[in-house]
């Protein structure tokens, strides 16, 4: 009798204790994670602050240094510290829109210094214009550095807790914007907007390279209906059941190639999927096409597929294209073709063609690179003979194949090189020797596996 009366409250009390313990453990774990995250952010912040200080100090030293050797050392330190600072900054819990210019500043500072190192190595010391640019960079870097040390003082006083700037969603980020951290960095963003020279140099992050206009499109502007016909003709009119255009935005001219984008429903809807295709507004060229249909039974060999790809390019009016490497996956083979002008392979003008291994159909086409860079080039004549270039290659590099190639350098520049393919210590490499100056420009490592060839 007595036992029964206590049974229910006993169970409830027990449940309560269990929940209490569970809750405490959860709370404790949450606090641990919070501390861990906070520590991580603190470390990022301190490291970044040091990196920015180093950038600033080294920039001022470069302005003073006279000798080539010291300048190259200092510039490479700026390059390294600016990249590291950028990398750390991008992992801080601050919204991207408050950081994008600071990130750009650091990336371009690094890139700029790297281009100066290359120029130095080619025997071109810093010009007075570049000196001005460095001075502006230093000015901005010291401002950023000062903002960061102010922030540091706040942290020391305990006014800033990184947990306040936790990420999650935009709404939370907006609230966090009132936070000191963001306010400081935003101030720098404002300064840099008003007071930042456009850096003119050759490098992957320079504005000139980013804003390069396509050269291989041709003249006439085509309207939507003409573009539709071009697209239909490209995939074969018989296949098209319906063609619809994707909606364009107000600033569609911001596209790297202005174009109409279409979705094509094939006649055989039960078996096939929609095909996507893009036609340039200028010139009415096919930029890319993709047909994501699955390929089940592989019947063709790589060589058969290559024949299909070659015939296809010829039919579409792309002459003088030469296959360079291939990748095999999902029942398709992707061939990369490069344009060959007289005996010179021009890598920038490349077209990719995907062939399905079941029936040889072309299921992918990408001429964006070709359309961006192709034009009638005035190719320089090589000043070095093949033998002279060969002498510049390491003696025990086992050369299998030599040819002339035009390779891209730092974004927009192109240089004529002798390309030496061969083996060194059991691995495949490609060595490029500048055909005009004899400089060893680049080495690529070729990695072959069962799925294709990769060059890095």
């Amino acid at each position, binding site marked *: 009798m007595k036992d029964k009366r206590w049974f229910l409250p006993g169970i409830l009390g027990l449940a309560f204790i269990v929940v209490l313990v569970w809750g405490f453990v959860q709370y404790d774990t949450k606090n641990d994670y919070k501390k861990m995250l906070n520590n991580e952010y603190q470390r990022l912040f301190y490291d970044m602050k040091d990196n920015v200080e180093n950038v600033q100090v080294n920039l001022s030293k470069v302005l003073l240094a006279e000798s080539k050797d010291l300048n190259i050392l200092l510039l490479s330190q700026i390059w390294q510290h600016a990249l590291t600072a950028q990398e750390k900054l*991008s992992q801080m819990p601050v*919204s991207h829109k408050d950081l994008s210019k600071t*990130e750009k500043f650091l990336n371009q500072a690094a890139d700029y210094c790297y281009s100066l190192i290359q120029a130095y190595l080619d025997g071109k010391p810093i010009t007075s214009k570049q000196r001005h640019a460095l001075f502006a960079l230093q000015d901005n870097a010291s401002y950023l550095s000062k903002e960061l040390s102010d922030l540091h003082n706040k942290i020391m006083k305990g006014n800033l807790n990184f947990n306040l700037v936790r990420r999650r*969603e935009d709404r939370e980020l907006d609230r966090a914007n009132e936070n000191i951290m963001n306010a400081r960095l935003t101030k720098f963003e404002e300064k840099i907007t008003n007071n930042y020279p456009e850096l003119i140099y050759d490098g992957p992050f320079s504005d000139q390279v980013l804003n390069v206009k396509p050269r291989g499109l041709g003249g006439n502007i085509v309207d939507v209906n003409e573009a539709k016909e071009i697209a239909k003709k490209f995939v074969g009119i018989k296949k098209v059941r319906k063609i619809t255009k994707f909606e364009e935005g107000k600033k569609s001219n911001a596209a790297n190639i202005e174009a109409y984008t279409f979705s094509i429903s094939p006649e055989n809807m039960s078996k096939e999927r929609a095909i996507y295709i893009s036609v340039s507004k200028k010139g009415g060229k096919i930029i890319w096409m993709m047909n*994501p249909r699955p390929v089940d039974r592989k019947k063709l060999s790589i060589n058969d597929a290559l024949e299909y790809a070659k015939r296809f390019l010829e039919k579409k009016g792309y002459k003088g294209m030469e296959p360079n490497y291939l990748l095999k996956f999902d029942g398709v083979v992707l061939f990369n073709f490069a344009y060959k002008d007289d005996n010179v392979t021009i890598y920038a003008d490349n077209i990719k063609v995907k062939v399905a291994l079941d029936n040889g159909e072309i299921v992918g086409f990408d001429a964006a690179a070709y359309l961006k860079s192709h034009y009638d080039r005035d190719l320089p004549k090589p000043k070095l003979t093949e033998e002279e270039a060969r002498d510049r290659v390491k003696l025990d590099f086992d050369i299998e194949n030599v040819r002339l190639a035009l390779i891209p350098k730092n974004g927009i520049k192109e240089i004529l090189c002798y390309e030496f393919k061969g083996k060194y210590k059991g691995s495949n490499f490609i060595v490029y020797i500048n055909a005009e100056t004899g400089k060893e420009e680049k080495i690529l490592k070729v990695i072959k*596996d069962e799925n294709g060839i990769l060059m890095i």
Partner: protein
Amino acid sequence: MKKLVLLVSVFTLIFFSIYTSYINTNTTAAYKDYSINRVLYWGSRGDDVKQVQYRLLKWGYYTGRVDGIYGAGTYRAVRRFQRKNGLKIDGVVGPETAAALGLNFKSAASRGVTRDDNVYLLARAVHGEARGEPYIGKVAVAAVILNRVEHPSFPNTIASVIYQPGAFTAVSDGQINLTPDKDSIRAARDAINGWDPSYGSLYYWNPATATSRWIWSRKVIVKIGKHWFGK
């Protein structure tokens, strides 16, 4: 007195069941889904040897310690295992023996430098961000990530772009950890091979769910599926 005994026993029961389930998940996780990428033989050392020893121990072929050292004991156990399973009896763990042990054997040729890890990471991001979008929309999302890598205002590697705090909702809410489907992997691969249906865009947003007003100040280029793409 009875009540106390009951209480204590119930409590200990709960405690131990929680404790053991906790321990179990921990140990099995450590030995789950493991792959080896080299041929193992007498004298090999390492975690992959531990995997082999652990399995042989579990199935009663091995009696020694799981220490990651391929010695005489392990050698004999492997031979016993091979005899029992009709494999070539050589005391070496190659592809066939590994498969029989339930271990995934990856040949050395496919190791080293590949872009597969990046393709898979990109595919996960695409799957988390653009599930249910048309194929071209998936390629475009992957292309935006790659365009960011090339742009100075963003981090310079695929992983840093994807994991930049607050950059992608699929990362914040953990959907990036879902297993990507075939279409996402294909879309990621197309984007890495150069296809860019976003025409160089750096941002995309869904007008139905976008909360930031700032995003509308971007230059809008094209609408694919539910997403607007812009710079």
